[in-house]
């Protein structure tokens, strides 16, 4: 990546500028703009009900997108998140059906998530396997274990108190109560990534693993923690999913991993690693969620959403590439012009 840097420009950009014109911020402007446009154009969109339904739909993806952002920033990937959520759901159903105390069940489920994440982390950091291959394997393995655990059955009679709490809203605003937990998660991940040395270390790892090691960052341990965190949050998402639909099945959250990755990439996180922000990821998730919801409300077929998601994804990566190509072309042209002027300037009066 070649950037035209001069002392003048580096000195001139203040933090405020950098933050407000960053890719993540731009995504937020777009999301807010889209919300406004949709509120005006789509009837019944601007209502408390929208906030409720939309956020409930979006919460699992939002939750998983947070650790996924960190994982992708370090240059790795985790495709097994949805299978971990599904496995958690299956375990939850089976244990509850056997009569275990519900809070004990929840604790066990979180441990399942931790173990799943730890397994991924172990394979990637200690054994040294490529994360794409490992997580494709665990994607199948965990989903398979979910099938083994709960089979074709569905468990539906979860405690009424918990299931209503999972979908309950704050007062009359329509915003789900569970959002508070999600906001706490967002805050934690944002602080870790943007405000702690550990987070800066993650970005360094994404830029160059070797350089990060030389600087003294324990790359293996950092990635291991990330995978454990991913597993834990995936199991939380699985628990929420089960409570929200009051149904534990082996195919819960199936296919969610692609939605999460698409949203995260849309939010400006670079698949190469080293670039991205939590606000950007959140904006990406909301963007897809809002458009999805509006299309559903208008009874427009899912087909449109699928094509829109795909196009947005490609545009979001091709766009910066084109932008970079243009600025490099401009730089090259300027350099060429300078060189030509220098070449054409007579060196001595004699020539």
């Amino acid at each position, binding site marked *: 990546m070649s950037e035209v840097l001069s002392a003048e420009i580096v000195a001139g950009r203040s933090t405020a500028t950098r933050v407000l014109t960053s890719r993540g911020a731009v995504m937020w402007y777009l999301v807010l703009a889209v919300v406004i446009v949709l509120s005006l154009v789509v009837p019944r969109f601007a209502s408390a*009900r*929208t906030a409720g339904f939309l956020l409930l739909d979006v919460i699992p993806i939002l939750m998983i997108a947070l650790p996924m952002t960190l994982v992708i920033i370090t240059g790795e990937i985790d495709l097994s998140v949805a299978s971990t959520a599904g496995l958690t759901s299956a375990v939850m159903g089976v244990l509850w059906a056997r009569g275990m105390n519900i809070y004990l069940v929840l604790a066990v489920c979180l441990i399942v998530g931790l173990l799943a994440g730890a397994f991924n982390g172990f394979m990637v950091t200690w054994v040294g396997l490529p994360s794409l291959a490992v997580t494709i394997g665990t994607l199948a393995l965990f989903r398979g274990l979910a099938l083994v655990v709960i089979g074709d059955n569905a468990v*539906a009679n979860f405690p009424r108190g918990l299931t209503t709490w999972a979908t309950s809203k704050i007062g009359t605003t329509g915003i789900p109560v569970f959002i508070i937990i999600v906001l706490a998660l967002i805050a934690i991940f944002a602080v870790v990534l943007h405000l702690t040395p550990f987070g800066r270390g993650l970005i360094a790892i994404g830029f160059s693993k070797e350089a990060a090691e030389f600087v003294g960052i324990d790359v293996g341990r950092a990635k291991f923690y990330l995978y454990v965190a991913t597993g834990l949050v995936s199991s939380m998402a699985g628990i929420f999913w089960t409570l929200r639909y009051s149904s534990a099945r082996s195919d819960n959250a199936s296919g969610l991993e692609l939605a999460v990755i698409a949203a995260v990439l849309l939010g400006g996180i670079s698949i190469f690693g080293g670039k991205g922000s939590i606000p950007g990821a959140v904006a990406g998730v909301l963007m897809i969620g809002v458009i999805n919801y509006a299309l559903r409300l208008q009874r427009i077929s899912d087909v449109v959403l699928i094509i829109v998601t795909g196009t947005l994804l490609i545009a979001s990566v091709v766009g910066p590439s084109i932008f970079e190509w243009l600025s490099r072309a401009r730089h090259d042209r300027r350099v060429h012009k300078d060189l030509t002027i220098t070449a054409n300037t007579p060196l001595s009066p004699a020539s």
Partner: protein
Amino acid sequence: MALLRTARRFLVATAATTALALLVTGCSSAAPPSASGNASSAPAANRSITFIPKQLNNPYTDVVLGGGKKGATAAGFAKSNVVGPLEASASSQVSFINAETQAGTNAIVIAANDPDAVCPALTEARNGGAKIVAFDSDTNPTCRDLFVSQVVAKDVALIQVELIAQQIGGAGDIAILSATANATNQNEWIKYMEAELASNPKYKDIKLVAKVYGDDADTKSFQEAQGLLQAYPNLKGIISPTTVGIAATARYLSTSKYKGKVALTGLGLPNEMRKFVKDGTVTEFALWDPAQLGYVASFAGKALLDGTITGKEGDKFTAGDMGERAVGANGVVIVGPPTRFNKDNIDNYNF
């Protein structure tokens, strides 16, 4: 250079103001709870009905929906819609139900992928005044007003057992290839089949050796059929009470050495099965007219909205051209008797 600095400051200021403005307007347009239309208070002329099948792109469902739309117009609904997931999954129907709740649809006609997962959403729709009619595949009786069943469930089961017994000569091993493991209608029919095989002395030499699930997916059903014949080489007959399953099994049988040796019956669409009946793979199978199912469901919705019936046993309503229908125990309405198809009459039907 000074110009560059000023330009940058201007950009910062604009960005900040825009963000603030968007935030303010965004909040104000998303927050206030607006009435999303009290569904039950719509005058008769303005009613809307929405069909939510198990999945779109299913030929059987398309016939039902065709009848449903015709019935909706005949019953006086101003607007009829069809929405649904592209793949038969339990939780995906929920977001469609939510969209209908928000749109204030008066009648929702749904075929549930999972009887319990859709309950919370349906209950919320009912609280908003909508009437819920289940069709084809029932939901939990607590969250719907009526269930329109194509035929008496027991009759469907009995006729298939009778057909297979005829076709295998009264003795031998048989297997069942079903759809998804949680589908209410499938499980009900299978239950009656098993009971009949166990209790009726006519079938004492017939043994049910396996039940497999093709998930109403063509490829999976095909492979399950293969697996059945490998695992049970002495199998004499297969019952497939699902149109996708019977068609896939027929295709497998007709291209293998089992053609004509292993009997196949179940519920199939004449158009799909015509080729296999003509080439001898299938002797006889059953179904009903799916369009009638949708038609009656529309009129049931109208009757509920009119207040003519409330869904309790003994209620009667007129289903347009199909005459009077009575509500049986548990809020179940029967459409009519099943039809048998064989090579003598299969050309008379076009669905």
